[in-house]
Each structure stands twice: as structure tokens, then as C-alpha cells.
């Protein structure tokens, strides 16, 4: 654990993995396929018991697992939920995840959980408020905390800075890390008409501990939705090539959450990442 944001945690590159999802679990347990690592949605395993926990233990016997959450609500005006954090910390100790991640968003207000990753305006005041909370979370959890950039479908008139600046400011002020979702950059870029290359060029890649790639859906009205139900678009792979090179090699997860493929097909999609993992200083985006 770094003591301040001036130190950079050297995250291990775990390789290429997929999000662990129910339709594949029986296959994985029965066949123990060759996979570098899996990512779990923390909240699905923060239960007393039952099949998810039993299956997780069987997966942990054979694979490294990293944890990714959806309900921390770091950007919420609500206080941090220490009951939630206590359960999360217990699960992190159990899985031995090297870091844990959640989204730079809010999911809860006045204790009402909206079960969605919701956006906020990009202001200095909000960035500093979120950074202060993120620092408390990382200190409490005692392992590196990585925040994921969001896909958004609205933008706010009162934003004072572009998304990448807001994201980087939170990370730097809190001394936390980045769970960099390449598809989310693309989705937000299309939805809000900014150049994704500008975004990619403004990121401090020394803070990135993990990457996501995923597919998205275009609504009839032109909005891109982060649905994780389709193949990764070529343009997103091209962006990934640049991100991978800039990080010097980073753990990569393919997220696929609906309209599931077979396990082998999902792994084949994830393996495409290997073609873009080029260590060449001249890679341009």
C-alpha cells in the first residue's frame, strides 16, 4: 500500500481475464480452463452463503480473482456506508484481491439505492469532495482502490472541466488508482461529442492498475449505452492498443453481462486483446 499519492503502486499484470458470470461457472469448475484471472462483482458475493460463495471458493482454489464493485457510491452526497465497507473488506481478505475497484459515480442518495451508475457535473468542488471520500475508503480498506471512469448519457451545463481532467484530479488528490474502461471512454466520447484521443492523451497511465474492454449498444436515438452484450468494437480495440502500450502492460478484463456467449466464445473475444498488446513506444492513437 502506498502511503501517499506521490508513490505509485506497481500493480502486477495478471494477464487477460473475463468477468465471472453465472452462465459460465459450472463449465469453469468442471473443466478448469486456462484463464489468467477472473473479475467478480463484489456485491454478488457479499452474502452469508449459498451457491455463489461456494462457487467462488472453488474458483479461488485455481485462479487469481480481482474484485469490482457497483454500489460504493463514492460520488454520493450520502456518507460512506461503513457496514458495506466492512463486508467488502472481509470479502477482499477472503479473495486476496490485489486491489479493488468501483465506479466514479453515485448510486445512492438519502439511502435510496438506484442500482445504476449515475453521473455528476465535473466541478472542482465535487472532485475534491469525492477525492476526500476515496482516500478514506482506501485507508480503511488497506489495499489499493481503483476508480473506474463512467459511461454517461447526460452531460451537465455547469461542468467546469472535461471528464478526463475531473477523473485525473480525483485520482491524484485521493492518491488512489485507475480502473480504466476503454469502452466507457468511447461511449462517453460519442454521447458527448468529444475526441476520445484527447481523453487518452491526458491520462497519467502510471495510476492504471487494470483495464476493461466491453461492447456497447446504439439506441435508435443515437445514444450509446454501455450494455456489455456485444463484441468489442474495432475502434475500442485500437484505443486499447494505445492504453496498453502507455501502461507498459496492464491486467485486462473483458466484461460481458447479457446475451451471453459460451465460455469458449467469451474467452476467444477476450483473447483478441493479445493482438493489441504491443510494446512499441511509437504506437499512435
Amino acid at each position, binding site marked *: 500500500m502506498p502511503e501517499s499519492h506521490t508513490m505509485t503502486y506497481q500493480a502486477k499484470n495478471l494477464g487477460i481475464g473475463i468477468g465471472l458470470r453465472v452462465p459460465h461457472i459450472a463449465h469453469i469448475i468442471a473443466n478448469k480452463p486456462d484463464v489468467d484471472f477472473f473479475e467478480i462483482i463484489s*456485491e*454478488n458475493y*457479499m*452474502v*452469508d*452463503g*449459498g*451457491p455463489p460463495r*461456494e*462457487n467462488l471458493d472453488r474458483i479461488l482454489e485455481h485462479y487469481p480473482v480481482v474484485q469490482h464493485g457497483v*454500489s460504493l457510491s463514492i460520488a*454520493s*452526497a450520502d*456518507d*460512506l*456506508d461503513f457496514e*458495506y465497507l466492512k463486508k467488502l473488506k472481509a470479502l477482499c481478505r477472503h479473495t486476496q484481491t490485489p486491489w479493488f475497484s468501483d465506479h466514479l459515480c*453515485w448510486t445512492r*442518495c*438519502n*439511502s*435510496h*439505492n*438506484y*442500482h*445504476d451508475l*449515475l453521473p*455528476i*457535473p465535473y466541478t472542482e*468542488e*465535487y472532485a*475534491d*469532495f469525492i477525492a*476526500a*471520500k476515496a482516500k*478514506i475508503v482506501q485507508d480503511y480498506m488497506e489495499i489499493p482502490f481503483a476508480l473506474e471512469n463512467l459511461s454517461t*448519457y*447526460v*452531460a*451537465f*451545463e*455547469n461542468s467546469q472541466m472535461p471528464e478526463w481532467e475531473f477523473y485525473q484530479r480525483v485520482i491524484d488528490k485521493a492518491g488512489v488508482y485507475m480502473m480504466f474502461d476503454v469502452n466507457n471512454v468511447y461511449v462517453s466520447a460519442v*454521447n*458527448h*461529442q468529444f475526441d476520445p484521443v484527447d481523453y487518452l492523451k491526458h491520462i497519467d497511465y502510471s495510476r492504471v492498475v487494470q483495464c476493461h474492454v466491453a461492447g456497447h449498444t446504439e*439506441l435508435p*436515438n*443515437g*445514444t450509446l*449505452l454501455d450494455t456489455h452484450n456485444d463484441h468489442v468494437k474495432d475502434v475500442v480495440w485500437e484505443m486499447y492498443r494505445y492504453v496498453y502500450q502507455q501502461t507498459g502492460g496492464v491486467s485486462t478484463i473483458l466484461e460481458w453481462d447479457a446475451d451471453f456467449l459460451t465460455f469458449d466464445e467469451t474467452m476467444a473475444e477476450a483473447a483478441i486483446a493479445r493482438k493489441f498488446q504491443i510494446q512499441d513506444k511509437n504506437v499512435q492513437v
Partner: protein
Amino acid sequence: MPTIPPSLLKLQQQFGEAISTPLELLDEDANFRMRTEHYDLSLVKLLVPREDLGLSGMDRLATYNQQYWFRLLSTMQEEYPLLARLTGPGVFAQLVMDYLQQFPSNSASLRDLSRLLVTYMSMDSHYNRASWVQAAELEYLYIHAFDAGRLPVLDLSHLSPEQQVDQLALPIRFQPDLRLFSESWNLVELRMLARSENDPEGPILIPAHAQHHWAIYRKEHYVTAEAIGVFQYQLLDALMQGKPLEDAVNHVVEQTDDHGRAFMQERLTSWFDHWRRLGWFAQPDC
């Protein structure tokens, strides 16, 4: 904790209210429209339109409103297939929206979404129909059983049959997933029908009134229902309320005649043996 920016709290209250605005159902098949006219205009003014796509701030906010209800409705549809079939899709969607307006989710987990559904249905005259409420009770037991913890299973293998009987005379501890369910129709089997992929869509007719008793529990990785007789139900119910075995047996015996008493005594040992084999008993809390 850092000081909460008041403007952030206000924005999130407005945003949360807008995206949880109930959808307007247009027909019995649960086709709907977003009630964008209910959004707070001071919030809408803060949102950047996409004029090139013809999208106003309101239209963009509606994407979140739609996503919010799609996620919650599909979660409830998955967990309550029988209730959804009994009510039909339109009434089910309206029920879910009315319920979640009254009892919004306050948990990080979608598994807790329906924790107060039965309470809500019992309070609301629109939904307080006995078969619907019992279906909701049953389907909640399936959720509970799936997520419940597991205690070490009672192991009597090293004991003689006599010692095993003595062991059962101790306070009995049940696995947390096990719940009893007494119902007035045959909802357990109707639920299987509702879940079966071959079954055609459309409303399910409630069969004639008949009392059924069940034990709902988790077997390996799925939840199942074991049909039990009325004496078994009463006995298990008494034991699960913490009555010692002898008191529980007496409690059931008192409610029956000589014929019933003989029937019970004859079967008691085999019932316990069967329940133990099903893994319903946990090791005593030492």
C-alpha cells in the same frame, strides 16, 4: 467525513426523483411511456441537449428513467415468475412500481429488492389478494433459501440408533435456508409451470382450494420444495420455534385424535431420519 456540498445533495435528490418517476403503462402487456412532464425543470435546464440528434436534456434524462425501471422490473420478473403470471404483465409492472415507490431499495444488493413486497401487498387493497400474497411469500422463500448461509450438517454417523434419538432430544438447530410454507392452492407446482420454458405465456388459472404444506430448502445449488403432511408441518413449525422435541410432539399430539396420535408415533423416527438425510439439521451450537 468531508463536508457535503449542498448543491450536490440537491442535484442528486432531483436526479434520483426524476429517474425513479414511475412509467405510465399504456396497456395490459406493460407497454409504457416515460412521464417526462414530471421531471423537475430546474434539473432539466442543467442538462446539455444533443441538438444534432434532436435530443433535449429531458430526452437524455429519460434514458436513465427507462434504465432504472427496466433493471428493477426485470430483476423482479426473474425472482417472481409465478406472481407475474398470476397478475399478468401489466398489473405486475404496476405492482412493482407502486411497491418500489413506497419502499425504495435501501440495499446495495438487488437480492434485497423484494424484502418488503409481501408487507406492501398486504397493506394495499389493490394487491391484497390471498393467492397473490401467498405466491409472493413463496417466491421470497426461494430467494431466502438460495442466499442463506450453511451451518455444519448434523452428523450422527458415529452414534448408535439409541444415541441418535437422544441427540435429537437436544434443542434442534435447523439450517438457515429451511422455511415452512402452508398454502391454500398448489402454488409450488404452479410456480414450476410458470418457470417452465415450454409453458405458453398468459395468465395462469388458480386451481381449486386445497391445503398444501411444504418445506422450502436448498439442495446443493438449487432451491426445492418438499411436500410434507400437516403433522410434519406442525411438528417442524413447533421445533423451529425452539420447542424441545418432547414439547413439540406433545403440542401436535394434543391437536389430534387417537388415530392421528398412533399415525405420528409410528412415523416419527422415519420422519426424523428422512429430514436428517435431506440435511435440514445443523450440528448443535456448542
